[in-house]
């Protein structure tokens, strides 16, 4: 079928690598004028990377970017803006120390000269009135004083404001994630009105219902490739889920033999500092406990609280065994960059490796070799520097450090961040095996696939536990829902 409306944006064979990890492996994408394109896929499927490339904030390794039939060279955020591409990214791009009006000004070089403050204020408040009637945001409010939902509203409204440059394509990356149901509906209605007026939108959301109802066409991404693209009517929920590839489905059975909860001895009982209700995190021997929710909502704080409670009594946290931590930000608080692989692995087990006052080189090497063979750290010699390993293998060494120690509880702070899929699967098996041998895992992760590896999941929001899901209750939808709804 030939579509009458012209293509305004065309991406051709776009590739992008971050180190050894392939984020995009040759993606084609077309957006027509006056079209709402839905983009769905699991975390890490490459949606956000693709949008950053379209916005000019990331440079593709290979591929063409064509805007209105003109191929772009040296594509930059400024060029994207000139053309009329606007973005609302997941991480907010407002300046917290500026007022709402001043933040509008940042996007519009044309707002200058005498009285620019009034013009900027009128522009942004007018757009807010149009999209979110009754929004309660003032032009002179400081953004840092606004709650997250209103910041998101300001950010969305700002993307739709126009001065001297036209608005042709607005990218909305999870725009409804911090909005409540009412404002989300306002936004979706406005999006439809704008699309009817000839502006294009790319809409990314984890809530498949939203995408199915509001988009004209849907592209499904998976592992850095677009795997399906069709009119929205051609999809339904099940088809989308199948196309996204729920790879954990077949794995789910593997965890079916977990112990009945509460049969084994208690290992951790922890209440978060800011917890209002009675909810508390409980972990027994041999369990894998997931900590879910949006990034930075208190999961890491709780892990650190458990970690310090193991050595020093702490109110609200009860720990009955030794603890080891696998850091997520391995460059900052994981590896010792000047040490060898074996030294990095052995540092948590120094007591065991000691001979008199000194560390026995032989025992250290034996420990490191054992783990190298067991979890497949790819190196010719464990005496090499840790930095000679790839990122995924460095992370394996950190796992070996924790598992090689005599700790009965292992805390993991998003340990597979930036690790390729193959290594991830190996790590999942390792965790499962160690749990069956009686170790307890507390696992903070932002990926739903990994939560499905857990026996029990606690969802965090604003430093408190807001949901407590068993493995059978766990769905992505539920985690997202409880991440965003207010704790009552």
């Amino acid at each position, binding site marked *: 079928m030939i579509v009458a409306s012209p293509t305004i944006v065309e991406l051709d064979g776009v590739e992008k690598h971050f180190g050894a990890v392939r984020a995009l492996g040759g993606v084609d994408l077309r957006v027509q004028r006056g079209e709402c394109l839905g983009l769905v896929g699991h975390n890490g499927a490459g949606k956000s990377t693709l949008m950053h490339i379209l916005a000019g904030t990331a440079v593709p390794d290979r591929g063409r970017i064509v805007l209105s039939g003109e191929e772009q060279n040296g594509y930059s*955020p400024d060029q994207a803006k000139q053309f009329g591409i606007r973005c609302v990214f997941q991480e907010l*791009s407002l300046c917290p120390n*500026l007022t709402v009006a001043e933040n509008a000004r940042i996007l519009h070089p044309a707002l200058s000269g005498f009285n620019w403050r009034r013009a900027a204020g009128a522009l942004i408040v007018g757009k807010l009135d149009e999209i979110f009637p009754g929004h309660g945001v003032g032009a002179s409010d400081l953004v840092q*004083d606004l*709650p997250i939902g209103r910041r998101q509203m300001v950010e969305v409204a700002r993307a739709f404001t126009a001065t001297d440059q036209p608005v042709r394509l607005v990218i909305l990356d999870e725009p409804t994630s911090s909005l*409540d149901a009412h404002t989300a509906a306002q936004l979706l209605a406005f999006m439809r009105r704008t699309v009817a007026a000839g502006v294009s939108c790319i809409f990314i959301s984890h809530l498949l219902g939203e995408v199915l109802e509001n988009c004209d066409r849907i592209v499904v991404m998976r592992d850095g490739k677009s795997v399906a693209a069709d009119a929205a009517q051609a999809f339904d929920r099940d088809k989308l889920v199948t196309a996204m590839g729920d790879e954990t489905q077949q794995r789910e059975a593997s965890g079916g033999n977990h112990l009945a909860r509460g049969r084994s001895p208690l290992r951790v009982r922890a209440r978060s500092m800011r917890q209002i209700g009675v909810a508390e995190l409980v972990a027994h021997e041999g369990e894998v406990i997931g900590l879910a929710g949006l990034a930075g909502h208190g999961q890491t704080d709780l892990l650190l609280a458990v970690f310090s409670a193991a050595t020093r009594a702490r109110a609200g946290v009860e720990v009955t065994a030794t603890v080891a931590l696998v850091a997520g930000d391995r460059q900052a608080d994981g590896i010792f960059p000047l040490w060898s692989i074996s030294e990095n692995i052995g540092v948590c087990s120094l007591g065991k490796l000691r001979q008199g006052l000194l560390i026995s080189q032989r025992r250290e090497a034996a420990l490191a070799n054992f783990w190298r063979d067991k979890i497949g750290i790819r190196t010719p010699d464990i005496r090499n520097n840790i930095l000679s390993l790839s990122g995924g293998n460095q992370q394996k060494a950190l796992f070996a450090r924790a598992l090689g120690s005599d700790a009965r509880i292992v805390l993991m702070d998003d340990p597979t961040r930036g690790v390729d899929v193959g290594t991830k699967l190996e790590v999942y098996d390792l965790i499962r095996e160690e749990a069956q041998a009686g170790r307890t895992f507390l696992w903070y992760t932002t990926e739903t696939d990994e939560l499905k590896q857990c026996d029990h999941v606690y969802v965090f929001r604003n430093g408190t536990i807001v949901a407590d899901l068993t493995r059978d209750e766990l769905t992505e939808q539920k985690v997202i829902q409880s991440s965003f709804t207010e704790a009552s």
Partner: protein
Amino acid sequence: MTAASTAAAQPAARTMGKLKAQRLLRALLPALSLALVLMAIATLNPRAISYFGFTLMLNLAIPIALATIAQMFVIAGNDLDLSIGPFVGFVGCVTATWLRDTPLVGILMLLGCIGVYAAVGALIYLRNLPSIVVTLGMSFVWQGLAILLLPKPGGRAPDWLLTTMGVKPPLVPFPILAALLIAAVAYFGLMRTSYGAILRGSGGNSVAIGRAGWSLLKAKMALFALTGLFGVLSGLALIGITTSADANIGNGYTLLSIAGVILGGGEFVGGRVSPVGAVIGALTLALAASPLLTFMQIPPDWQVAANGAILIVVLAARVLISPKGAER
């Protein structure tokens, strides 16, 4: 649905109001501490509160206020300038020698200094260096140049500068007029102009500024050049008051200027600064530094320590009323 959302909006409005009240309280704190110091002086020595008294007590506050504004610009961009003190000293030496003897060369040198500041900003941005290290290095450079120029105290301020700094306006003492002018210029420049918003934004969320298509390099260079400009003004004002120069004359200004910015409600990170507060902070420090302590009959040996104690007390008060959790 609407009823539910308005019900939800009410507590939000209340926290907004509370936040605003706290913010107002914090904004008033610099003025409050200045008033406290003035009241203490008035009780200890009522005669000091007069046209002549203020002119004497606040004379040295003008260069301190200018140096504080200079420091404020770099702090707005999440940096710190440890070289401002020796820089003011170097400018003082140039003023008392070249600017008097061969004005054209002197002016070119001072303009060159501002250029050097902009270049330091560019270096810090491009090489992603910690500003503390670079400006600490620069402080030795300025100090060394100043000693080369004026190995022993001497020189003489140009006559026009002496006349300017010696103006006696009717009714309001000159230092107070000057402080008002400095505060107004800095406030308008950084808080009210449209490019000022970009400069402050670069300290608040530089990624957002870059994504919107602004040059972060230019912003950093502009902030450092403004620091250089106000540093030059500070050096000029200082020599206009002291009439002759000394290579070490400005050394105390580095920490005084940082303290002034923080005392005035600024923060080290996040682009949160207040020009008016900074000037008030500088005045408070200048008053607390020696007039107050002299009136309290604290021996000069103890004055530096007492000055530090006052600083700690005022900063502690600021932390007490800072909104918790809003400092993201």
